[in-house]
């Protein structure tokens, strides 16, 4: 192993040498290098293989830079060494044998060290990763097991045992997770048929499903479960107030000056609740079409079911005189914890995406090598799948070549053409903005009109007509969600941006439309049903807030128990979305495919080719996640419905991929859209967070239903209960105070700056190493040339002394 020491010594040598060469900014060429070589005459005697091996180990160093040193794998370095050694041997005309590699892989036994148990075990594990035939691996294993081993004693023995069992356990868990995992067979079938780019969308659906499952479990454990058990045991407490006596209290606002918590206030709240129950039972059908249908089906009031907010009536649950369960505080706290954990998850997934983004931006995304060497998906079993993947790859290559051509064209663009393109882009942006605003207005009008229509007393006893009317806004939203991405992608093509930017723009615009549609509907709803109530009145709007952000409803009253109405609207939205998806996948798309086969003109063919639009389908998932997280506070069952929705959508989209979509999709091998998807998730999460915070802190809960009756905001429930734990409360107050927050913020900023400077330093190091590589390559070529000329000279001098030229590989 003396040569390795020589190598490392020379590496240090060359490092300093290359430094000065680098700064002179001249690469060694034929004329200049004689000087440098006179400076270091020993360099002529360097056998070339160690030169290339240095480059191999240099590569190793650069790849592992930044990670801790113990990740270095000696066997791979040895392999690089011997493979380049083999390369130079080949240059001399001999052939290598795989057997030669084995020699360098054996651990260093020549120096007489006896390995201990742990090292032997690690060497054994390393055998798996050796690219040699099985017979040699078995031989190696036999040799290793027959070596005398030192037994470890005491602490190191314990550590070794723990490490070994942990590794085995982890291996088993990973295997069983991968193989018995939910939906595994479907994912495999999709991968066989259409490749990993599409499978990623389905993995995203699966991830969303599990996320919603987690949220549902948290909700069931802390909110739905306890309340349901309490309800099943104790039933709903009866209200002592009589609606008849309550009406005047509400109409005259007699409790306007009552302080919160006093008897008069309590009576007032109970009155509101009595009025509400009276309205529910009145059969006036002012609560929407779904409620009427439920009643007619004999299922009772939909608003007494657990899916509705009004089911959760009591603010404190006492179970058999044990400790009280502060239901209202727990409601808010669970919501906050859910958001916090979602934030952490988001940060984790973003950190994974950031790595890819950095690689892309540092210019290390090798587009063509990625296509050629990592382009073919080896997991293909049948002809249609292989044909599909071939078409995808061909399309990707053509796109990559076209981007190159476009770049060149862009350089030669005339001023006039450039101006024309700018105008087109401006026009497209305006069109998109106009489309978004129009869609918002249409949705808003639809919501308002249907809400008004629904509230009208109708002669139709079945309530079906009302139900149909109620579904109209949801259908309108779904239609916009489906048609807009198509329009947007057509418009995007006009703009003539680069492909990556085009995809990102389409994604951002489609996402904007989706979020805007939800919030337009919510605004329409709020305008119709919500306002801040005047103290002393159940539902009458406070005149002081008349000119706030949201206009006050026309009737100057907010709806009784507006949260449960809102929750039911969200459920309707989800249901409508699902129904439209089913119709499109199972009815419209197969018809479109048939169209292609029957009529042989160009338009029919264009309508008939369906491809799996990855952007649209990923957005669907983000949309449902946004809906679920936005509304779980007023509709506790929405994450559970989201789980069912994800499950059904998975199979619907699977049908679409396997049977409907036959032409290759726009995959993203040549353009990386990770950052756009990350941004999309982040944006929707932030918007949902704002909704949650505004609901908890800013909106007045209903006075007649729900656990927050009588409070001015749900957060007050938490504050009320926190004051009873004085030490905790004081502690939290001090944390929240500026005295603590400002230094923490400063420390975080300093940390961020530190990491930023480390990243800059690493970047500079990568550049230096890259230059070194190029220099080494040029050195090598020069020396090869020198060697050949020496050889020729010696051959022409004395044909018999050829041996003198062969180099020693000591």
């Amino acid at each position, binding site marked *: 192993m003396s040569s390795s020491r020589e190598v490392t010594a020379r590496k240090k040598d060359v490092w300093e040498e290359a430094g000065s060469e680098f700064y002179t900014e001249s690469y060694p060429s034929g004329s200049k290098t004689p000087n440098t070589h006179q400076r270091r005459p020993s360099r002529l005697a360097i056998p070339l293989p160690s030169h290339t091996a240095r480059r191999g180990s240099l590569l190793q160093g650069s790849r592992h830079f930044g990670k801790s040193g113990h990740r270095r794998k000696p066997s791979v370095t040895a392999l690089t060494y011997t493979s380049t050694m083999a390369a130079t041997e080949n240059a001399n005309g001999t052939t290598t044998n795989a057997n030669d590699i084995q020699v360098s892989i054996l651990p260093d036994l020549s120096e007489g060290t006896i390995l201990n148990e742990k090292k032997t075990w690690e060497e054994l594990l390393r055998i*798996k990763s*050796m690219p040699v035939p099985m017979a040699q691996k078995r031989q190696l294993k036999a040799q290793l097991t027959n070596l005398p081993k030192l037994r470890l004693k005491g602490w190191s023995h314990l550590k070794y045992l723990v490490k070994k069992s942990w590794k085995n356990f982890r291996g088993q868990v990973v295997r069983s997770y991968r193989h018995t995992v939910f939906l595994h067979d479907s994912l495999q079938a999709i991968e066989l048929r259409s490749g990993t780019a599409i499978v990623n969308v389905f993995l995203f659906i699966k991830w969303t499903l599990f996320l919603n499952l987690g949220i549902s479990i948290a909700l069931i454990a802390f909110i739905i479960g306890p309340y349901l058990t309490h309800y099943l045991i104790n039933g709903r407490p009866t209200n002592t107030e009589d609606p008849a006596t309550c009406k005047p209290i509400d109409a005259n606002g007699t409790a306007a000056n009552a302080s919160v918590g006093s008897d008069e206030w309590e009576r007032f709240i109970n009155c509101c609740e009595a009025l509400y129950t009276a309205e529910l039972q009145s059969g006036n059908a002012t609560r929407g079409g779904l409620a009427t249908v439920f009643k007619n089906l004999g299922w009772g009031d939909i608003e007494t079911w657990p899916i509705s907010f009004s089911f959760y009536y009591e603010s404190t649950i006492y179970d058999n005189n044990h400790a009280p369960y502060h239901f209202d505080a727990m409601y808010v706290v669970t919501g906050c914890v859910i958001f916090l954990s979602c934030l952490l998850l988001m940060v984790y997934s973003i950190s994974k995406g950031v790595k890819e983004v950095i690689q892309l931006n540092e210019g290390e995304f*090798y587009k063509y090598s990625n296509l050629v060497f990592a382009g073919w998906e080896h997991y293909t079993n049948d*002809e249609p799948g292989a044909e599909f993947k071939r078409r995808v790859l061909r399309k990707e*290559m053509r796109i990559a070549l076209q981007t190159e051509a476009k770049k060149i064209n862009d350089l030669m663009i005339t001023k006039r053409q450039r101006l024309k393109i700018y105008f087109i882009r401006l026009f497209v942006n305006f069109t998109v903005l106009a489309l978004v605003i129009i869609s918002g207005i249409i949705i808003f009008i639809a919501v308002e009109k249907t809400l008004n229509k629904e509230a009208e007393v109708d002669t139709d006893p079945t309530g079906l007509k009302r139900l149909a009317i109620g579904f109209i806004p949801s259908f309108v939203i779904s239609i916009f969600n489906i048609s807009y991405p198509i329009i947007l992608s057509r418009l995007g093509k006009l703009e003539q941006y680069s492909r990556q930017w085009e995809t990102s723009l389409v994604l951002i615009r489609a996402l904007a439309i989706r979020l805007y549609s939800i919030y337009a509907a919510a605004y329409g709803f709020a305008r119709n049903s919500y306002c801040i109530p005047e103290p002393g009145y159940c539902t009458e709007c406070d005149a002081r807030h008349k000119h706030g952000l949201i206009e006050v409803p026309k009737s100057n009253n907010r709806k009784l128990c507006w949260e449960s109405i809102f929750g039911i609207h969200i459920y309707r939205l989800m249901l409508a979305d699902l129904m439209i998806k089913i119709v499109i996948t199972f009815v419209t798309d197969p018809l479109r495919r048939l169209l292609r086969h029957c009529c042989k003109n160009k338009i029919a063919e264009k309508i008939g080719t369906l491809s799996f639009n990855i952007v649209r389908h990923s957005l669907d998932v983000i949309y449902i996640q946004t809906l679920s997280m936005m509304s779980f506070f007023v509709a506790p069952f929405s994450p559970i419905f989201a789980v069912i929705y994800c499950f059904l959508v998975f199979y619907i989209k699977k049908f679409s991929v396997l049977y409907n979509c036959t032409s290759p999709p726009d995959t993203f091998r040549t353009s990386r859209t990770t950052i756009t998807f990350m941004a999309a998730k982040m944006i929707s999460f932030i918007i949902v967070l704002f909704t949650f915070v505004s609901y908890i802190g800013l909106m007045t809960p209903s006075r007649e239903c729900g656990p927050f009756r009588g409070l001015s905001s749900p957060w007050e429930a938490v504050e009320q209960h926190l004051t009873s734990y004085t030490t905790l409360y004081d502690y939290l107050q001090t944390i929240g105070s500026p005295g603590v927050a400002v230094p923490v913020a400063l420390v975080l900023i300093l940390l961020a700056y530190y990491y930023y400077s480390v990243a800059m330093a690493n970047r500079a190091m990568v550049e230096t190493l890259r230059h070194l590589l190029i220099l080494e390559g040029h050195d090598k070529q020069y020396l090869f040339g020198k060697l050949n000329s020496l050889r020729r000279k010696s051959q022409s001098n004395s044909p018999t002394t050829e041996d003198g030229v062969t180099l020693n590989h000591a």
Partner: protein
Amino acid sequence: MGNKIVTFTEEQLDDYQDCTFFTRKEILRVFKKFRELNPSLVPKTMTANEPVTVRVPIEIVTKMPELKENPFRERICTVFSRDGQGISFEDFLDLFSAFSEHAPRDIKVQYAFRIYDFDGDQFLGTSDLEKTLQSLTRDELSPDEVSLVSTKVLEEADVDDDGKLSFGEFEHVITRAPDFLTTFHIRI
């Protein structure tokens, strides 16, 4: 108990488990696939020397469902076969172990280099790249496009400017290819 056919000895199974990325069950599944290639040639028990001596000709292996649509099937079989003519069970096991999902990137990069090296000179030259492209796209790209793409690949990956890719350059490029690990696997 009863007439259970012992396919491998315990020692063999142990060895195979330690030398590949498969568990016991998976090794037996791989054996079943191997036997399906040619049931008359491959015996039911391989307790003696059969894993090395019994060889299935490459033409038959390239027809198995996992490989028949793969454009590199002949290269893959040649790389993993010891004598270039037939594949023994141990070679077969090596093949699927390298392509399994649990195999780390390094071993896949090693074998990928050998597979793409059509002429076997330990370098990926222009001819190797062009043959790779032709196998991938099956003559659907014009010769201009093929040479353009291979020039681009060399531009990206060839650091020392010698017109061909050595293993080090290939490894450097592949570790930065985000799709490599997801595409370079076969599930069995």
